[in-house]
């Protein structure tokens, strides 16, 4: 089970199922009231003027523009790709988003549409969103995405196995997916809405990091609640602690439910003050979102123009 790159203590943690359980159960607890109070308190930060403009552009560049519907078509994906590479056609200085996020069967369409733009293609995989299938099927799903040219894979962990305490099983699965990803970046969705406690969020975060996830991601967006600020706090703390222990920078992606610029700014404040300013980059922080982008663009116009804009002035997806 062991990973090569971790320091000795962490290598020990992944030696076998028992060690892994002991390690994860031994992580300091998370007090719900305390973490929620802290998140609420940071949520009152007031971001104005230049700081706000910078934050809006940074947030745009962190968006994984997402469509994950049964009704998705190639046309829809192409339209999304166009939006992704030039979010505000009237304002070419608006940065492109980080990636477009689609189901594996549409990854090829996205790759084609975004060829040469520098915008990534993220594909969900591993029997997204429930993860309820065999490992073979999950790995085949990953292979489909990677072969289509996806640069990023968003996998889901087996929450059932996690809640049963079969941490070794989940660990091995993430490792296997990581291997199947090849050069593609792996985001590990822990689906916090199904983990029930912040203690579990912390354990699952560490499990994802130990197994080699490049990012840990809150949610599929198909389960309520999706991303929340306090959950993201716990995950940001985990990557910070991971960095302090290993020197490695890993990323965090909250997904689902982040719709407004105000929300996005709160997340960025959390990134800044919980993990640290090194994380204020699309390399290490993403928003999994769809409608957020338009609000960011509207607010961007408001900041630049000095008056409020309207939805007719930005492109629908």
């Amino acid at each position, binding site marked *: 089970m062991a990973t090569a790159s971790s320091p000795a203590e962490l290598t020990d943690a992944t030696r076998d199922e028992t060690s892994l359980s002991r390690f994860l159960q031994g992580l300091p607890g998370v*007090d*719900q*009231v305390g973490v929620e109070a802290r998140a609420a308190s940071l949520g009152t930060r007031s971001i104005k003027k230049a700081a706000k403009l910078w934050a809006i552009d940074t947030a745009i560049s962190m968006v994984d523009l997402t469509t994950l519907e049964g009704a998705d078509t190639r046309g829809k994906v192409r339209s999304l790709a166009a939006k992704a590479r030039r979010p505000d056609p009237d304002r070419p200085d608006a940065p492109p988003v980080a990636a477009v996020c689609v189901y594996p069967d549409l990854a090829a369409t996205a790759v084609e549409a975004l060829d040469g733009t520098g915008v990534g293609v993220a594909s969900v995989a591993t029997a997204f969103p429930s993860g309820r299938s065999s490992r073979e099927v999950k790995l085949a799903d990953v292979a489909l995405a990677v072969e289509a040219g996806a640069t990023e894979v968003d996998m889901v962990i087996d929450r059932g196995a996690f809640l049963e305490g079969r941490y070794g099983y989940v660990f091995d699965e993430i490792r296997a997916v990581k291997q199947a990803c090849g050069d593609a970046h792996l985001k590990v969705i822990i689906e916090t809405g199904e983990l029930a406690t912040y203690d579990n969020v912390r354990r699952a975060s560490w499990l994802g990091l130990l197994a080699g996830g490049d990012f840990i991601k809150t949610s599929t967006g198909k389960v309520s609640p999706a991303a929340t600020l306090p959950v993201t706090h716990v995950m940001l703390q985990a990557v910070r602690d991971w960095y302090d222990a290993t020197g490695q920078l890993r990323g965090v992606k909250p997904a689902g439910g982040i719709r407004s610029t105000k929300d996005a700014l709160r997340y960025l404040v959390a990134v800044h003050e919980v993990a640290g300013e090194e994380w204020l980059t699309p390399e290490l922080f993403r928003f999994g979102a769809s409608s957020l982008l338009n609000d960011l663009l509207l607010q961007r116009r408001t900041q630049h123009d000095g008056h409020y804009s309207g939805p007719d002035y930005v492109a629908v997806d």
Partner: protein
Amino acid sequence: MSDRVSVAKTYKLYLDGKFPRSESGRTYPVTDSAGGFLANASHASRKDVRDAVSAARKAFGGWSGATAYNRGQVLYRVAEVLEGRREQFAAEVAACEGVSTAESSAIVDAAVDRWVWYAGWTDKIASVLGAANPVAGPYFSFTVPEPTGVVGVLAPQSSSLLGLVSVLAPVVATGCTAVVVSSAERPLPAITLSEVLATADVPGGVVNVLTGRADELGPWLASHADVNAIDPTGASREARVDLAQRASNTVKRVLTVPADEPDWTRRPDISRLRRYLEAKTVWHPKGT
């Protein structure tokens, strides 16, 4: 045929569960109300105060940490033993206070009943004074009364038993420990009560009884940094201001007491218990 010669008792102090003489070696004669000699009482000194306070402090952890039920049992046991020695107390009270045997018997009965009343409070006062606080947030907040610590009691000068019981019982019922300076002129029932305490499983040091002068020993108690509260009942009116001023030096709780000794036969309330209790509020978040 000659009458049997009685065995006279040497009255000593009650300190840390033992009956020592005053470290000063001083004694003073105690007379009955007609001036007849009754006994020599130990004349406690400031060093006896010091020893008594340190005994009371040492006993505080155990006594305050005992379950309220256990304290109630021990204090009820005191009442049982008191009841068994009613005649001795009646005789002493009659001699000291110059009342008839019938009157002194009634006083003893009232004292026993008073003790029983307070004994029953040990495991109830917390539910009367405590609370679950409905705070505006995801916290469980509760308030419990806790004993304030070591209490210096200057016992009433007139009422040698009922008055003494009325001021001492609430101290120990709350879980505090006591250093009592008895009535100066009428100290014998206090020492006999000490014998009752010693035989009734009250741990040594919980109650310490010094016989002597309240106005001499009171200032040492009031200024002692390890004493948490003072009951100035037995101090002279002139001395009380000085006591209260000394007490301010370590922010002691000073009981507000009437200028003159009250009628101890009146039904008590819980105000004395309240004075020896600190409210402690504990908060804890509620979360998963």
